[in-house]
């Protein structure tokens, strides 16, 4: 461990300079309101700080480091030009209030144009009629979508209390529906197909159903071709159909949720549209809806007349979910990415993402069990069942991969597969990289056969070994005070 930054502090040292005050010194803050407790922040030079963070960065692993096949996370390459564009002063220094002030709207036309154009592009990709860029992450998009569903049903006087979610859904789906006030009912997967059990679904859908949240392709990497049938069942009970766009990277140019009768969707710009994930955000989770739901979108909305402007006169809107227009600079990076891909590039993205996933799955199917050995979409799910019988679990395989220079796949998810290894290669990886990963996975499978013990010690190449999570929860040392 690098020492904690506060331990490096040297009283009197400074890392930033500011101009001397060119105005008179004001009266002190009245005692009653003034801070009396010490401000225990560090005192460091600029170089101290730069070295500290540089040392930390060397203990991290990003897409730029090497292959990052983390299933359901779409860890594709983030083009550098998008960072440069987001840093342009005309965007980075723009105060968001300018667009809302009388006589100042003309100062933000370029930024409003980006919002307007990106909303349109997302409509074209997904087949929805209108988008909002306000939600600040995927889960925030889900919550916004559920709040739109709720506002719609309230407006129609429909007393609906439940949201149906397949058991293989992302954990955010049930919690987002719950935060929006709904009871969550879990629809089972048919173990034979790996797809939603339509019989069970039919039995659960009722007049109480507000929405059905679907991920298609699902978290097993399988596309459900009976989606229209599911939509019919949902719509027949007055429920809306929600599309979780986490897996959009699989289907661009092949299927648009809007054409599959989905009413609401969110997309993850930090997945499909190549904006970096930042070690846990900022993301962006724009929400798209069919025209009948447009009045419920968060306000204000960007409109185009002679000029771009904001329209806050939206009486049915659920209200704002962000202080302004969402994570604008993330949206801007996605916009720049889409300018470069065009629609044709996006279609090519999905084709290659799916080919890469199938190539990895087929290449590993002799060495690992595949619960559903059929054509997958952009990701595949293997199981370490066979290895687990020899004492090597999915987590051991993950840690062994680290020692071979790769980021592990997602493990133990989806929950419906025991010892799951969920691999999403993305389209930006070359065949050479995929082959190197496949070889590493095969070597680990072979090691599991011969001497499983060596795998339990992994990783040995990292700054720390496997960490004691029980101690972490017990000690609760969450701040250096």
């Amino acid at each position: 461990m690098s020492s904690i930054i506060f331990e490096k502090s040297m009283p009197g040292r400074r890392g930033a300079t500011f101009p001397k005050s060119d105005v008179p010194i004001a009266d002190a803050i009245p005692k009653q309101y003034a801070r009396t407790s010490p401000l225990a922040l560090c005192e460091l030079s600029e170089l101290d700080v730069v070295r500290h963070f540089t040392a930390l960065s060397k203990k991290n692993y990003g897409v730029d480091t090497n292959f990052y096949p983390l299933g359901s996370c779409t860890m594709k390459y983030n083009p550098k030009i998008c960072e440069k564009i987001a840093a342009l002063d005309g965007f980075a220094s723009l105060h968001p209030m300018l667009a809302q002030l009388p006589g100042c709207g003309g100062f933000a036309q370029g930024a409003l144009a980006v919002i307007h154009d990106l909303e349109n592009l997302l409509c074209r990709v997904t087949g929805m009629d209108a988008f909002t860029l306000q939600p600040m992450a995927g889960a925030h998009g889900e919550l916004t979508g559920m709040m739109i569903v709720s506002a719609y049903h309230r407006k129609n006087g429909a007393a609906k209390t439940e949201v149906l979610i397949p058991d293989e859904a992302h954990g955010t789906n049930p919690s987002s529906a719950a935060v929006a006030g709904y009871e969550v009912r879990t629809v089972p997967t048919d173990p034979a197909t790996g797809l939603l059990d339509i019989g069970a679904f039919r039995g659960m859908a009722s007049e109480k159903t507000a929405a059905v949240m679907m991920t298609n392709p699902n978290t097993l990497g399988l596309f459900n071709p009976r989606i229209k049938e599911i939509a019919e069942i949902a719509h027949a009970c007055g429920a809306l159909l929600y599309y979780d766009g986490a897996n959009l990277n699989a289907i661009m140019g092949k299927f648009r949720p809007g054409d599959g009768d989905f009413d609401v969707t969110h997309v993850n710009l930090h997945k499909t549209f190549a904006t970096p994930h930042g070690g846990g955000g900022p993301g962006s989770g724009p929400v798209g809806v069919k025209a009948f739901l447009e009045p419920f979108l968060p306000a204000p909305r960007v409109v185009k007349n002679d000029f771009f402007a904001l329209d806050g006169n939206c009486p049915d809107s659920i209200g704002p979910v962000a202080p302004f227009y969402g994570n604008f600079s993330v949206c801007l990076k996605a916009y720049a990415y889409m300018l470069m891909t065009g629609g044709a590039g996006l279609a090519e993205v999905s084709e290659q993402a799916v080919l890469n996933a199938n190539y990895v799955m087929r290449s590993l199917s002799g060495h690992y069990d595949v619960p559903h050995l059929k054509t997958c979409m952009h990701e595949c799910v293997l199981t370490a069942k066979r290895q687990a019988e020899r004492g090597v679990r999915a987590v051991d395989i993950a840690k062994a991969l680290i020692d071979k220079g790769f980021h592990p796949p997602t493990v133990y998810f989806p929950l419906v597969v025991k010892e799951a290894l969920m691999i999403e290669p993305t389209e930006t990886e070359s065949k050479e990289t995929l082959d190197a990963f496949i070889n590493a996975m095969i070597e680990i499978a072979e090691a599991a056969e011969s001497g499983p013990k060596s795998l339990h010690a992994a990783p040995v190449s990292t700054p720390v070994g496997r960490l004691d999570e029980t101690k972490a929860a017990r000690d609760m040392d969450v701040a250096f005070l």
Partner: protein
Amino acid sequence: MSFVPATNEQRLEMLRACSAASIGELFADIPKTLAPPAPHSGFFGTEGASEFEALTICERLASENNARIVSFLGGGFYDHFIPAAVDAVASRSEFYTAYTPYQPELSQGTLQAIYEYQSQICRLTGMEISNASLYDGGTAIFEACKMAMSSTSRRKVIVDCGVNPTYRKMLKTHTAAISVDIAEVPLWQDGGLDRQRLSGVIDDGVAAVVLQNPNFFGVIDDHSDIVDKCKSVGAIAIQSVYPLALPLIKSPAEQGFDIAVGEGQPLGLPLSFGGPYLGFIGAKKQLARKMPGRIVARTADAEGRDGFVLSLQAREQHIRREKATSNICSNEALCALRAHAYLSLLGKNGLIDVANLCRNKAAYLRECVKKSIPSIKITDRPIFNEFTMALPISADDCVKAMAERGFAAGIPVGRYYGGDSDNVLLAAVTEKRTKAEIDCYVGNLREAVGVKR
């Protein structure tokens, strides 16, 4: 340009390995009837731009904004100087191209940075625990209210109208579908807290009381009396704070608050037309299991080496699903890292310097306006770097006139508070405004409100 490195030969080779004759075969599960219909399918044939062309398009759009206007805008979002080293360290792609640190052995950099960020937030606010960040200051209030409702098993939330009106709207949005009784308590007309009225509505049915310091009108206060009242009825006291004011004003902990939240944008994040920003939260230790989102904890490996992990995950959505404390998954980790770098660079003395510069310049502006424009009424309430002025004309007209003179003069308060406040303008001053700019602003303001030189 799709950033796909596969060559045609490799594609064929990979298809052969998959026993597929064509890429189309891999999509056989998608019924033909579900393919994008004409004319919408045409979009997927449109060619993209080159890197240079995309840059040119975006540079043109950037030039259609005026980010250089001399700004006195605040309202929770401020034009502070950002040292270059913040950008430099946050531009390390090992940080920004990483995913959530689910594999701790590969993520010690992000994890230690978040642990240190949590420590910074605790030290700044005086609270005992913090988390890896929330989306923004508004959603942080929503999350704090949820914590309070969960720990008190009550459903009533009192919100002082000194809390940023956008945050109050966001709270209403996020609670519209769940049974929460939100009561807003109006301010005095000059922006001060109506203590009597507020105290009067805090009873044993209240889960949370939400206050802001400095409040939306820029007024600083000591809320200890309100916190005492909360304690007497078992309500959770929540304060939203402006982090750059904290070196000078009483911290939430000094006033006894249970939860501190706020917007971290002033801590080294560019304005970027509204985001990404940073919601921070600090709380007393006994609320740890009610905290939303990720928390990093220090622990050790088998060899006794210190390391960091995501902890108390049993609270979170990927484990608890619909019973989680929050649905938050991705947060604003890179923004938290920026805030941490900013606080480290400025350190104790730099932060006090910036806070004092802001305070001195705002006080100077207030004095100049008082002296040279008698038709503008200003109260003497204590402020940090922002204050309101009651103009002799409508604030909208004033902002329009000032825009023509090259100033973003401030925020008309009437758009949020209605009726009586149409002539009230909220102006903020940061360390970036020079005396010359302030003098020029005052001169123009005199003319804009109708007082000839």
